[in-house]
């Protein structure tokens, strides 16, 4: 009956209740949407950095990731590759050779970063084929096919089918050069990659650079990027000789920082947004308690305990909070889903922003993440409880005789 009394008290002033509930609904739904977009942005950044280029874990010789020294190469152990491939936490394993040099087409010459890969392997680690704007991904058995970024392709003035000349210093000190055929063009939005990255067959690059059978790194894609360091620790036991394994986080510490601080930022945003909402609720509940002073006097006079009065007021706010929470989460999920499926493309107004070793894409795109609901939900209930607490205390502190004299 106490619960039904609370429910009826809520419906007593429908307009006020609706206003309070909508304030809570709107603020929690917007918070969920904002956090979803925030998550989407971090996801984009992590994806841009790892799934378009680096991978989540990288195995290389000590120091290679810092200086990218051409001689810092190694012969990948066949057994190691097998074992990595078989590991249930590893989704893809791609041995790579990297070479810096000049690419020419006609009179145009530009510096480029060539990544020697085996297409079938590389596709398990990075997803550049999802960003093709023309042509196709290099074929597995092709000898000299090149996939290059759109910026670079435009500067060179090439299209799929055109020929390129690559010139570089080989490992034996000679000048290595050879012909490539443009087979595809990608655009990721990340200008560093779009303006300089070229994917070529591993065997072709090994020959040009006179590094037969050698690679510079083995890039891995893994199941749980957030647990990269745990897996890295486990896998490092498998590594022969001097090989080292590093995580995306240690390659891009700023990005890792940004992602790790998301929990804190999420909390801060929620606190700020809910502060305003909380004050609104507090005001409403206070008003409704003051208006019912006499009624509380009656309830106390006929024997209701102070804790029951307190509980009554608290349940009123809590019920409103729960109601708002359900509707707010629903609305938030709906908007997040919309932003996930459709999103808003801002590329006509903004260019990609390079930040923390990665790229913030010019789009609003949300991801659904449990934490983005949990926090707003828990916070809303806490806010409702806090906002109900003072008025409830006030009601419970009333002296029945005084309350009854109140008009």
């Amino acid at each position, binding site marked *: 009956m106490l619960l039904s009394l609370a429910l009826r008290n809520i419906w007593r002033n429908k307009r006020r209740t609706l206003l309070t509930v909508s304030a809570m609904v709107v603020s929690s739904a917007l918070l969920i949407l904002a956090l979803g977009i925030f998550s989407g942005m971090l996801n984009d950044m992590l994806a841009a950095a790892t799934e378009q280029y680096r991978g989540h874990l990288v195995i290389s010789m000590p120091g290679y990731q810092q200086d990218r020294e051409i001689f810092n190469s190694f012969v990948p152990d066949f057994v190691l590759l097998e074992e990595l491939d078989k590991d249930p936490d590893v989704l893809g394993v791609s041995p790579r050779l990297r070479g810096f040099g000049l690419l020419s087409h006609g009179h145009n010459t530009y510096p480029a970063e060539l990544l020697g890969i085996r297409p079938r392997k590389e596709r398990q680690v990075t997803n550049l084929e999802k960003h093709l704007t023309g042509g196709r991904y290099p074929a597995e058995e092709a000898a000299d096919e090149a996939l290059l970024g759109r910026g670079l392709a435009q500067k060179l003035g090439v299209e799929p089918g055109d020929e390129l000349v690559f010139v570089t210093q080989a490992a034996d000190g000679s000048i290595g050069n050879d012909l490539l055929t443009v087979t595809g063009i990608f655009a990721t939005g990340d200008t560093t990659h779009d303006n300089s990255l070229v994917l070529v067959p591993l065997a072709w690059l090994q020959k040009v650079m006179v590094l037969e059978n050698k690679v510079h790194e083995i890039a891995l894609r893994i199941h749980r990027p957030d647990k990269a360091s745990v897996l890295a620790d486990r896998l490092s036991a498998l590594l022969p000789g001097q090989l080292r394994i590093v995580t995306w986080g240690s390659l891009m510490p700023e990005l890792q920082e940004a992602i790790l601080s998301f929990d804190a930022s999420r909390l801060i945003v929620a606190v700020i947004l809910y502060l305003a909402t909380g004050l609104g609720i507090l005001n409403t509940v206070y008003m409704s308690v003051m208006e019912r002073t006499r009624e509380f006097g*009656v309830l106390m006079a006929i024997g209701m305990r102070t804790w*029951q009065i307190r509980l009554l007021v608290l349940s009123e706010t809590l019920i409103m909070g729960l109601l708002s929470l359900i509707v707010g989460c629903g609305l938030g999920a709906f908007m997040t889903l919309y932003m996930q499926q459709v999103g808003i493309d801002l590329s006509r107004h903004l260019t990609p922003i390079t930040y923390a070793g990665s790229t913030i894409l010019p789009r609003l795109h949300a991801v659904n993440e449990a934490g983005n609901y949990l926090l707003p939900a828990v916070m809303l209930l806490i806010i409702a409880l806090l906002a109900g607490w003072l008025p409830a205390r006030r009601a419970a502190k009333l*002296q029945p005789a005084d309350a*009854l004299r109140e008009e």
Partner: protein
Amino acid sequence: MPLIQLTDVEKIYPLGNQQVVALSEFSLSIDKGEFTVLAGPSGSGKTTVLNLIGGIDQPTRGRIEIEGRDVGRRSTRALADFRLRHIGFIFQSYNLIPVLTAAENAEFTLMLQGMTKPARRARIRDLFADLGIGGLENRKPRDLSGGQQQRVAVARAMASHPAVILADEPTANLDSQTAEGLLDLMHRLNRQHHTTFIFSSHDPLVISRARRIVRLRDGRLEDDRVQQP
């Protein structure tokens, strides 16, 4: 031993920097089964006396005993429990809870006492029939007349069979005919259930219906007499 014993009770309300003496040197003893009116002009201290007996207000000085136990010096919690089990309140402006139906209002104290719903409903049905408001159980207070509301309030006060019913000017908002009806009812309940009634009024007609008249003036006992019917 009297049911209610007030001894040298004083009640002072602070009002800004001043003090209002609502009651002073007030002694009164009431036996079980009495039908007593507190009479006196507005501001004479009637409500204060009822509030003190009902344990919703504490005296500044003096003792208030009910069944030999001091009411004035109990904890808030104990007082609430005491009111729940021993006291029934009826107010001038009915003071029903507007969101509850007539039956829910009347059974509220039973609910607080932990009685099951079927048992509550059964008792309320009998009580409503007895009070002449049978069939109005599911009406909201705003859909009832003043007289009907006050009967629901009587039902609420009677529901848990309290020892004492305190009624503060229960007829003040009723027309004289309805007031008569309510007094008849209170008389009958007093006779049938031996419930002690203490009510206040400044209406001579109502006062004349009481068996004992306690007159107050400026917070003091002016006169105390039993009248022959």
